[in-house]
Structures are given as structure tokens and as C-alpha cells.
């Protein structure tokens, strides 16, 4: 093309081709996006939980957005154990205070960050959670200590509406 002059026809070819390609490409998006979480799924985004029935050393599991969320009322020993750990020992360093707004209440998504199994509570080498699928050990703050999981158990967004109720999401 370089040795030939640019003609009106070249211009028409290129503009027609570009518009066709851009139009076709923009139509791909609806076909991809239809698979994303839909409005009805997103509408279930928050869950309120009454904390009164839970005594120290007890945990409950609630379902939030189809995922299990662990709510554990930690014992004083568990709290001191979680606070005593030096951050250098952690694969994914995070202070316990950054994970529990109120040290007594640990709220986290109960899904192993490795491949999505549900860890078992008060098991494993660190007295926290243990994932039976591929052997990840979490401590009393839900932080990864040993095993294939890359990160700590996820902390969802939550707020204390009052002393006895939290809202997750």
C-alpha cells in the first residue's frame, strides 16, 4: 500500500471495516455480562445477625450471599493467643486488632482461601480453623499459619448496629 496513493476506496474500506468490528465487539459484552451476578443475587447483599444467644467459646455460621460466615465469640485465652503472635511469623501479616473490631467477636467468611472448602472450627495446629481439603491451618484470629492457602480468612464488611446485633454486608 505504501507505494500506491491512498484512495477514497481505501478510506471507505477501512472505515467500514472498523465500524463493523467495533459494532460486533460491543455486542460481545452482553453475552459475557449476562453471566455476572444478577440483580436478584446482588439484592441479597446484607444479613443481620442477633448475637445474644452466643456464649463465649461458641460460634455460629450464617449464610451471607450464599457463603458461610463464621461468627465466633472468642474466649479470653484465644484473644490473648491471637494478640501474642509476632507479625513476622505470619505468611499474610495482619494484626488481630485489624481483624476483629471488637476483640471478643471474630466475624469472617468461612471459606478457605485456598480452594473454597469450609474449614473446621477449633482444630488444627494453631487451635483455630483447619481445612480438611488440602490441609491449611488457621489461628484463633483466622490467619493462615501453615498449608497451601495464600491469605487469611476474609473479613466481610460488617457493622455493629448495637451491642447485640451486627449487619454483614
Amino acid at each position, binding site marked *: 500500500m505504501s507505494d500506491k496513493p491512498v484512495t477514497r476506496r481505501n478510506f471507505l474500506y477501512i472505515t467500514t471495516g472498523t465500524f463493523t468490528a467495533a459494532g460486533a465487539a460491543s455486542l460481545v459484552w452482553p453475552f*459475557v455480562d449476562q*453471566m*455476572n*451476578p*444478577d440483580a436478584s*443475587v446482588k439484592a441479597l447483599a446484607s444479613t443481620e445477625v442477633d448475637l445474644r444467644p452466643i456464649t463465649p467459646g461458641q460460634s455460629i*455460621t450464617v*449464610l451471607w*450471599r*450464599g*457463603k*458461610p460466615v463464621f461468627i465466633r465469640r472468642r474466649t479470653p485465652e484465644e484473644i490473648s493467643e491471637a494478640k501474642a503472635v509476632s507479625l513476622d511469623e505470619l505468611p499474610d501479616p495482619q494484626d488481630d486488632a485489624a481483624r476483629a473490631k471488637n476483640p471478643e467477636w471474630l466475624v469472617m467468611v468461612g*471459606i478457605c482461601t*485456598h*480452594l*473454597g*472448602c*469450609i474449614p473446621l472450627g477449633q482444630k488444627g495446629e494453631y487451635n483455630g480453623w483447619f*481445612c*480438611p*481439603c*488440602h*490441609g491449611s491451618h488457621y489461628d484463633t484470629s483466622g490467619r493462615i499459619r501453615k*498449608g*497451601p*492457602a*495464600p491469605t487469611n480468612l476474609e473479613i466481610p464488611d460488617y457493622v455493629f448496629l448495637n451491642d447485640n446485633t451486627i449487619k454483614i454486608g
Partner: protein
Amino acid sequence: MSDNYVPKSAVGKWFNERLPLLDLIYGHLMPYPTPKNLNYFWTFGGILTFCLVTQIITGLVLAMHYVADADLAFASVEHIMRDVNYGWLLRYIHANGASLFFMAVYIHMARSMFYGSYKEPRELIWIIGVFIFLLMIATAFMGYVLPWGQMSFWGATVITNLFSAIPIVGESVTNWLWGGYAVGSPLLTRFFTLHYLMPFLIFALVILHVWALHVPGNNNPEGIDVVKGSQDTVPFHPHYVVKDLFALVVFLIIFAGFVFFVPNLLGHTDNYIQANPLQTPEHIVPEWYFLPFYAILRAVPDKLGGVILMVSAIAILAFLPWLDTSKVRSAKYRPLYKQFVWLFFANTIFLGYLGAQVADGLFLIMGRIATVYYFAHFIIILPLLGYIEKTKPLPKSLSEPVLTKEEKEMLASGATT
């Protein structure tokens, strides 16, 4: 070969002149010249075609009764088992058919590896085969999710979570796959759709696979080139039609044994418990045919690393024609390769055994060694063997290895046998 077909009936003639379809099928099934020494390992192509058709037919009728919804799927499968006329039979054929499909495909692949069928000029046949294998893996995995038992649910959870290992976009990709924030109804519905679609894609690839095969013709146990139409070949019909059918009958006896006597032997009992998103089974295992790859996934202590290695374990197969640097095809004439290929088969089966164990302690260490060996076979042993191995002299024809000394002398002196 196709130009000498003449339909006998007037209707056949009329049709064939307008669309030479009969001509085409006839050419590929009847006179197609085939090496005369193919052993029973060459019957698995036909067996696999039978498996695919069986899965499509049983799947089609099962889909008439199945409901792809998280609340109804498990009950609809039980409904098929208990209420639908012969539903138990159709489902057991479909479920065991998947397992036998994989048994047959592994033998088919092992045959290709042993006799070097993937080598020039058959590389593309092999690569199409790897794509068929990939589609089979995807189809079988999605199919296993459909009954919505505990293993279905947690298998789907573990495998879809593999995508979360992708840096940065991992979470968006998994949410996109799920159509939500966890495995649930949207995923089940799309898996059902894709599970229905993929066998037809496999079917299309099988046509390409056979088409590509019929260009150079079959490899054979000696691994030498044969001249089409020479004394080394026989027409496909009746020789291999009969041989393939006999092998198929033997295969069907085994198939029936599974379906009628031990229909749940290859499945997991936990899959008869309805999916519960709040409870992970003690020990998640995939179906037996994925165990070697599962062992490779777990051998790596890093999430992304494990995923990359598992995908590579399958992807590396596509490069086999170039990783194997030896010009000699058949392991019969490659004394070193013959030992290494058996070692590779044994190692892969061992990986499968490890995939079924809890990944801890000694099992984990053995899993790592076996994983390293799996890859070493492809990227160290095969490329090197081509240079250091002293291969045995190849026969000039398929007859030569089976002739007696006297017969050979007669041939050499120009006499006819």
C-alpha cells in the same frame, strides 16, 4: 478409493449423483487401506466412538427428566432413579459410560505413546486428540456437578476456585463463572447447558480426527511407513470392521458388568447426599479419571503454582510430537524408550493412587517426586533419548519381522512366496 463406489439402487444413484455422501462414507469405512498388523490396541478408536454415541443418546433422554435448579436437581435425579421407566438403567449407563470412556481414552493415548503414533506426519491427529481429551475433561467435570450431591457441589467449588488463583482478576472471574458469590443455581444451569453442548463439539472434532487420520493412514505396531495398496495393507472392511466389533463386544461385557453388578463402584457415596453449602465433606476426591492431575495440583504448596502445574500437565501433551526427538516411532525398536514409557505409565497410575490419599506427610513427598518425574519425562527424558538412544534396525516391510529365515532368503532371491 472413493471413485469406484457405485450405488446399486436407482434411488442410491440419484442421491449419490447429487450428494456423494454415500461415496464418502463408503470410502472411509470399506476399502480404506489399513496396515495388516494392527493389534487390539488399535480397536479403541472404534470403542471410543461407540462411547461418545452412547453418552449422547443416554444423555439426551436423561435431559428429558432432569431439572437444572439447585433446589430441584438432586430430587430430579432420585426421580430418574426411582420413578422414570428404566431411569435407573439409563443413568447407570451414562454414569459408568463416562468412566469407561476415560478408561478407553487412556488406553488409546497410551497406545499412541507406546507406538509413537503422534510423530510426523500424524502430529495434527494427536493435537486434535488432545483437544478432544480437554473437552472430555470439561464435559465429565460439568456432568458430575449436575446431580447436585455433596461431591458435585464441593468438586465444583474446588475446581471453580482454581480460577481465583489468577492474579488481580481472579475474584471477578470466579464471580462471573458462578453468577453469584458462591456455587449455586446459576452455575448449575450454565453447567447443564455446556454439558449438553460439548459432546457435539467433541463429535465434530472426532470427524476432524478421523479425517486427519485417513490422510497418512494408520500407524502400526512396527511404526514404519507402509505403502497404501501394497501387500502391507488390507481393506478396512471386513478385516478391521470385524476385529473392532469383536473388541467392542468384549468391551460391552465389561461395561454391562459395571452397569448391572457394581453400578456405584466408581462413584462416591457422598454424592448420594444432597449438596450442603455449609458443610464440606471430610475428604474431597474427584472422579478416578482426574486423580493423577489432582495429585499434581496438590503437590505444590502454592495455590497459583499448583493450578499452573496441573494445567501444564495436560497442555504439555500437545507438544509431545516435538518434545520426542527420536525419528523411530515404535517402542519395539527403541530399547531405552520402551523402559521409560512403561515407567511413565506406572508413574501416572501411581499419581492417580496418590490423588486419592490425604495430601500429608509421606504421601505429599511421594506426590512431589512423582510430579517431578511426570514433567521430567516430557522435558528431559524424551528430548535427550532422541540423541543418546541406539535404536534397533527397522524392518523394511510389515512382513519381514514375522517371516522365517528361509522365507526371507526366498524373497531376497526374487522368488514369490
